[in-house]
């Protein structure tokens, strides 16, 4: 089992090496494992689309599953409104998927100073999508939720109180101001 997984990892890393250098540089934040994960998802989607395309045009399976696949792709913003044929699914790339991650979208919408800052913000529970706090940088953002990304209400960036470090510093400063003449209390 372990050996199987490791060899799968090797296979993934080899295919990741095939990715263009420019893509890796621009998405340098993404660990190669994540890139590999996306490639795996993409290849499964492409296989499904390819298999559906071999079926007859009026085949109920093709119609039903094809529509479902296209609907999912559009929902996640991978395909535009005008692209409503299975052939467009075959033209998807890793870049399309990587640009729908919450980490890239937080950066692109100006909510973070850099792409690494975006990852830190997400992981440190500052970002919410709709009403839900999202802690996962690889969250695939749907098109309808894209406008509802903001700072979470409890985060200091979104209107909540000061964070842990600031509170601690404020406490220490208050203590110093109050008990400066007397003995210094033990500071945690």
């Amino acid at each position: 089992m372990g050996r199987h997984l490791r060899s799968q990892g090797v296979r993934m890393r080899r295919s990741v090496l095939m990715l263009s250098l420019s893509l890796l540089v621009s998405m340098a934040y993404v660990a190669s494992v994540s890139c590999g994960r996306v490639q795996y998802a993409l290849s499964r989607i492409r296989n499904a689309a390819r298999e559906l395309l071999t079926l007859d045009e009026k085949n109920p399976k093709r119609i039903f599953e094809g529509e479902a696949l296209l609907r999912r792709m559009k929902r996640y913003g991978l395909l535009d409104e005008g692209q409503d044929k299975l052939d467009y699914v075959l033209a998807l790339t890793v870049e399309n998927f990587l640009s729908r991650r919450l980490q890239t979208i937080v950066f692109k919408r100006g909510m973070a100073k850099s792409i690494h800052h975006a990852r830190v913000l997400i992981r440190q529970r500052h970002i919410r999508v709709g009403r839900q706090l999202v802690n996962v940088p690889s969250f695939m953002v749907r098109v309808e939720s894209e406008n509802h990304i903001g700072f979470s209400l409890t985060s200091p960036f979104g209107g909540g109180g000061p964070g842990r470090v600031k509170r601690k510093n404020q406490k220490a400063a208050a203590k110093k101001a109050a008990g400066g003449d007397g003995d210094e209390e033990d500071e945690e």
Partner: protein
Amino acid sequence: MSSVQQSPALEILVREPDCFSIWAGPPFPNSKPTSKLEKTPCTSTKFSEDGSKLLVTKPNGVVSIYNCKSLTEIRSFEVPNLLASTLSPCGTYLQTFQKSSSPQEKNVMVWNVESGVPVYQLLQKNMSKTTWPSIQFSSDESTACRMVTNEIHFFDPKDFSKGIIYKLRVPGVASIGISKAPGSYLAAFVPEAKGMPASVQIYSCNKDLQTQPLARRSFFRCSSVQFHWNKDSFGVLFVAQSDVDKTNQSYYGETKLNYLTVDGSHEGLVSLKKEGPVHDVQWSISGSEFAVVYGFMPAKATIFDKKCKVLFELGEGPYNTIRWNPKGRLLCLAGFGNLPGNMAFWDCSEKRLLGSTKAECSVTSEWSPDGHYFMTATTAPRLQIDNCVKIFHCDGSLYFTKMFDRLYQAEWKPEAPEKFGEINGLVKSLGGLKIEEPRKQAQGSKVAQPSSSKTANVSAPPAKPAAYRPPHAKNAAVVQQELFGGLAASGSGEMSKNALRNKKRREKQREKKAAEASGAGENDN
């Protein structure tokens, strides 16, 4: 319909080096503007926002206020070391900024124009884009406020002697924007500081509700903000600009368009389909929709309603300016500045293109207050040659143009759009046009072919120079016609000598053959 009421006349202010004059507006009798006020010396001029008063700065620090109805000077102020002056929107107050000679002297003064008496004075060390005018008014002068470090001070515009009525504490505030009409909200921008994101907050101007912001939006990567309030203060559009583009796509930095509503129904980015800077964003005069021009060139233009939903797309094209018609339905998309000056006139309620034309090298552009004319002007100091004023009809046809040696300023006298009637006559005449409906995905520049409109109103593009004809084309019939004129036309009468000879020979041969044939026939018989 104000059929009983007289619509006010349009007026145009034209400022040349050292003097200004006012023309009685279009329509011009004899296609030449009549001058309402002859050349008067000045260094700068500015109308008040409602058009009732005109501020004229003369050399030696003299500021004169003219009443625009009678064009007479009502008051004149002597202000030594004057650096800047501005009128309040209704023309009631004049603010002046003087170079401060001593640290104690109050160098910003607010004068009451009617009485000529200074009503308020304060000290301000320096003047920058965000801190001048020091005291900002709303359009109806119901609110007046001033931004100082960490605080916003409110005054009573009716009575400045009360001083500061109340203060609003906003730590780190860098620029503010009062809502125009009604003036009951204030948007404040706090830039990034020490890891905290930049934020824009909306506060109410009413003292009792001032503890918490009504709405708030935080973001990173922004160094300055421009506010655009809506007409009925439903919400504020702000363009957040940053000097450095972290996505490495543009040398000029990046801009993002955000929309914040007062009731909190929309807080966030306006979703734009194309990447690139936001070139221009303008609310319509009614305040229920706004138009945005965005993206790397050729830019896309879209109209959104005030709930931030797409109303319709105006296609792509070399545009970077939007000018809404004051009567509300028409829109001019133009590409000025570093673009060649294409202008496209759209009717937004019917969603079609009225006409398009070009106005090269224009610096300023403005609709007339009644919405019938569109004036563009090429002014110094940006452009030192080809200074001119061009006036177009609202469908793009050129109406009037005048060249100047040097032109510094050309603008309409502002009037409330409600005073003028609707542009009904125009709509009727447009109904007769056969302009093809532009498809939503059509390129804006492609649709704007002048040949698609069938009236003579639309001005043709400048005449192409005569086509080059290669030597072998000189035998073409058209060229022959041009070259030989009448000679070729009466060709049957006069043929060349050779042609005549050949013709005779052929006829003779035909006769001979016919004779032989008949002779042979006879012989046979």
